[in-house]
């Protein structure tokens, strides 16, 4: 009997006895048969439509898995399943072990459990389980709605494009936690800018109780299930290939506007990642033109906006790549894949900030020490011997920061360095500097702080970068009759929690190192004193972010101690006067820093200018240039914000 001829069409699924399942991607018609181009797992093959080993795959096979022969159906128990879409969740092995060992509980409890299970039955994502498993997360309606939309309507692939400061990270964390609690997600990759890796890890740990690992080394990718990595590290040749071999249940990309260009390695890399669910986070999906938006959506749902040519014809005004047309239709399409909440829509009032610059001059002894340390640092920086330069680079940068913080902080390093064999060549100079430090008896900045504190009628956090400064301040403030508590990265978690509790309940001043800026919610306090100023603006932003956050009801007061003619005074000039950083919404600094946000390069730029400038004039000019660059970035960011508002509506 003649076999029934099947007329293939492009897009048909086929099964080949040798090559397995494939997809017909092209057909060339011939008089008695067609030549099919079929993509199999092993590559593209050209076959005739009457090839005896080829047959169309049953229509139902697309979504209904073929039932394997009965004999081979045994599951790899108890942890595996034979159905790709079925997950055995929880820890059944523990329960089975208890049955085997006869460790039984009360029958009445069992009966109650069955009743409770019956009552608790839900349907899909009707409620968010994650809300009972997060800590310190404000349960805001718009965040919950975003979470539901991603889970229900977008089936785990969406663009979270809320305005800066509304908590995109929280929304992504809630989606992630919800999926994990329900057993739908196990392997997760979070791709973020390098400057935010620690912040993400900390937030996911403290708020969502998820232990992510910052990955980057070869073994990390398959060893851990929960990974955070900078996009730059992930896309390097070394990691790129390895990551593409992995399968992730969920990939989250923060600051996803970095994927706006489809010709970049970053876009191609994310596009090629194997991931069931994908969340892209950006406050500014469009920075230059609508193609960027198209590229982002195409990562999430290829084809949702058609080909670019079709998209351009239908939704872009000819001659202006920034102007959309058919906006109602475009908006409907975007709604299927993008969530954008604006501050105006949330009715959330963000408190005002008042910024106070507290200028003061160093005492004569402090000035002598500061200048001597600076000269020492500049000499090391100018060293032509590459080995010496590298040896001293980090130490001298720390020393320069310490002397900008307090004399005790610098003395701490000088005391150790003057007898450290590694620095033997410069022991005499270090000894001399240490001696100068011993002469300092009055601390101008401390006195400045003591003048400010009586003006603060409530609690205050005094931030410093160094533990030595923290201890010095804490002791001196106590001598002055203030109640204080310290907080630093080396404390055990329980002590940290106790310190925050004490501060909340009875203590007036928290003296904290940068670690105080990580994860913990301090919004019951409204005053921040930057006793010293980190050269990295992201760290300054994190400090402010501890008190100026959702949930803060009062106005915020920021005091910046500014010493004349120091590195910090230049940094403050740029951050305060040039870009008005202290009025930025949390999250905006990263956008303005642009490339400077990566790899501590702003900090490095500051140090290079300070230590490398030959003359005072050169120093001023180079800081001026750096400030101008950031000011330009800020203007550019403002125009991007306006463009996004125009496209998506304020």
């Amino acid at each position: 009997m003649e076999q029934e001829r099947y007329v293939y069409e492009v897009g048909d699924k086929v099964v080949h006895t040798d090559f397995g399942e494939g997809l017909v991607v092209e057909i060339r018609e011939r008089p008695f048969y067609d030549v099919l181009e079929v993509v199999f797992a092993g590559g593209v093959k050209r076959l005739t439509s009457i090839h005896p080993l080829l047959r169309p795959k049953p229509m139902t096979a697309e979504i209904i898995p073929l039932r394997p022969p009965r004999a081979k159906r045994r599951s790899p128990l108890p942890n595996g399943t034979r159905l790709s879409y079925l997950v055995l969740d929880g820890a059944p092995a523990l329960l089975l072990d208890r049955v085997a060992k006869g460790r039984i509980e009360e029958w009445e409890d069992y009966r109650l459990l069955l009743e409770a299970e019956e009552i608790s039955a839900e349907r899909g994502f009707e409620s968010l389980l994650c809300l009972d498993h997060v800590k310190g997360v404000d349960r805001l309606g718009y965040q919950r709605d975003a979470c539901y939309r991603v889970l229900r309507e977008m089936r785990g692939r969406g663009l979270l494009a809320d305005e800066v400061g509304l908590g995109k990270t929280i929304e992504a964390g809630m989606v992630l936690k919800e999926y994990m609690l329900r057993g739908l997600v196990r392997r997760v990759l979070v791709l973020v800018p390098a400057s935010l890796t620690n912040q993400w890890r900390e937030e996911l740990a403290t708020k969502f109780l998820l232990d992510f690992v910052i990955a980057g080394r070869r073994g990390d990718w398959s060893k851990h299930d929960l990974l955070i990595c900078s996009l730059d590290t992930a896309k390097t040749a070394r990691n790129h290939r390895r990551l593409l071999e992995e399968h992730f249940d969920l990939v989250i990309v923060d600051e996803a506007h970095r994927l706006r260009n489809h010709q970049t390695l970053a876009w191609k890399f994310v596009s090629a990642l194997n991931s069931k669910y994908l969340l892209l986070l950006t406050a500014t999906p469009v920075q230059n033109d609508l193609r960027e938006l198209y590229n982002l959506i195409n990562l999430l749902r290829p084809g949702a906006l058609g080909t670019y040519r079709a998209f351009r014809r239908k939704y872009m005004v000819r001659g202006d790549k920034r102007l959309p047309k058919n906006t109602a239709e475009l908006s409907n399409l975007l709604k299927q894949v993008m969530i954008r909440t604006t501050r105006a829509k949330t009715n959330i009032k963000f408190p005002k900030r008042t910024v106070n610059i507290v200028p003061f001059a160093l005492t004569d002894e402090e000035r002598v020490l500061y200048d001597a340390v600076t000269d020492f640092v500049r000499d090391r920086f100018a060293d032509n011997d590459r080995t010496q330069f590298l040896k001293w680079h980090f130490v001298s940068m720390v020393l320069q920061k310490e002397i900008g913080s307090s004399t005790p902080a610098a003395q701490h390093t000088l005391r150790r360095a003057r007898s450290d064999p590694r620095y033997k060549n410069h022991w005499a100079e270090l000894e001399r500097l240490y001696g100068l430090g011993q002469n300092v008896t009055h601390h101008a900045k401390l006195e400045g702080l003591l003048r400010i504190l009586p003006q603060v009628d409530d609690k205050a956090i005094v931030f410093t970068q160094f533990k030595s400064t923290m201890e010095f301040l804490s002791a001196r403030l106590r001598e002055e009759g203030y109640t204080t508590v310290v907080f630093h990265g080396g404390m055990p978690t329980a002590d940290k929690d106790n310190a925050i509790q004490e501060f909340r309940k009875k203590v007036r001043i928290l003296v904290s190192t940068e670690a105080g800026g990580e994860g913990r919610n301090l919004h019951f306090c409204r005053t921040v004193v930057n006793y010293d100023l980190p050269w990295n603006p992201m760290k300054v932003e994190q400090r402010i972010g501890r008190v100026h956050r959702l949930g803060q009801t009062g106005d915020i007061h920021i005091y910046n101690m500014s010493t004349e003619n120091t590195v910090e005074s230049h940094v403050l000039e740029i951050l305060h006067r040039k870009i008005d950083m202290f009025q930025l919404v949390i999250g905006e600094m990263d956008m303005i820093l642009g490339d400077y946000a990566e790899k501590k390069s702003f900090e490095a730029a500051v140090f290079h200018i300070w230590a490398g400038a030959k003359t005072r004039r050169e120093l001023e000019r180079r800081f001026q240039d750096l400030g101008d660059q950031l000011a330009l970035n800020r203007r550019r960011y403002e125009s991007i914000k306006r463009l996004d508002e125009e496209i998506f509506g304020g």
Partner: protein
Amino acid sequence: MEILERSGSKLETAGEGVFACALGDELARFLGRPMVTFTFQRRAAMNGRADLAAPGSWLHDQLLRFARDRGRVARAYLGPRPGLDAKQLAAERLSVSAEDLASLERRYGSLLVFTFRIFYYSDPAAEVLLHLGYDAERRRISRRGLPRLLADAQPVANPNGYHPAPAPDVGAAFSAVWTAVEDEVELRVRGLEEAGRTAYEARIHVVENYYRQLLAEEKRLMESRASRKGHDESKGRIDLLKVEWERRMKEEADRLRPQVVARLCAVAVLQVPLEKWGKVGTGTGAWVDTVRGESWTENGGDHCAKEGNGG
């Protein structure tokens, strides 16, 4: 209320429709407080006098969670069905006269009841509780009448002097039950997939159209290119697009397919009284399940009594 009583909490009335409850130690630890004042009336709760304990409230949810954490492995005993004549059933099974039979053995057998909560993440979504039994005597899945058996079971053995059951092979039991779960899930997923087929096909159609258009655009470009280099570039891109098309289709199919999560909630070990009847001196005979009225011989062959089945 039952949960509160079981946890050793002491309940008192503290006004109209308001209850004050000194919590038992375990529940107090779980809720993080030594006592709760609660009401089932929304008005009283709105006055701030008490926590609402109605379905959907925080307290209600917490109590359910507390209950679901306990009693996950339990044992209970069933008694012989009144009026069931085990000897007669054995005689029928062996096709001999009842007078020729004597009681050879009386002991319990284990029926393990596994309770799964199965979540179907699909459109429409569903969540079901599935009870599956495993008869450790006959090494087979048993579904019949499980709710009734669970309701009839008592935490103490009946006084008829049945010997304890041998320890069941828990691994084999779970293995068999899990295969049954997979079958159940597979069947249900087919139904769900049918229900969601329209949305699925629409999305697949979008992907297909997109790649078809891309290929068409690239081909037009290739044809318009005069240089060999440009031609080869286009050809390379076309090949890549084809591979990507395949990958995307798989990705979308994977994502849009219902996702199912099965969670083992509890295991009950039901002790079923069994009687073995046979000819004296032969050692062989027929077993009778005195609850469900089923009989079988050790060399195979089952039989269910015509009169009822115990569930």
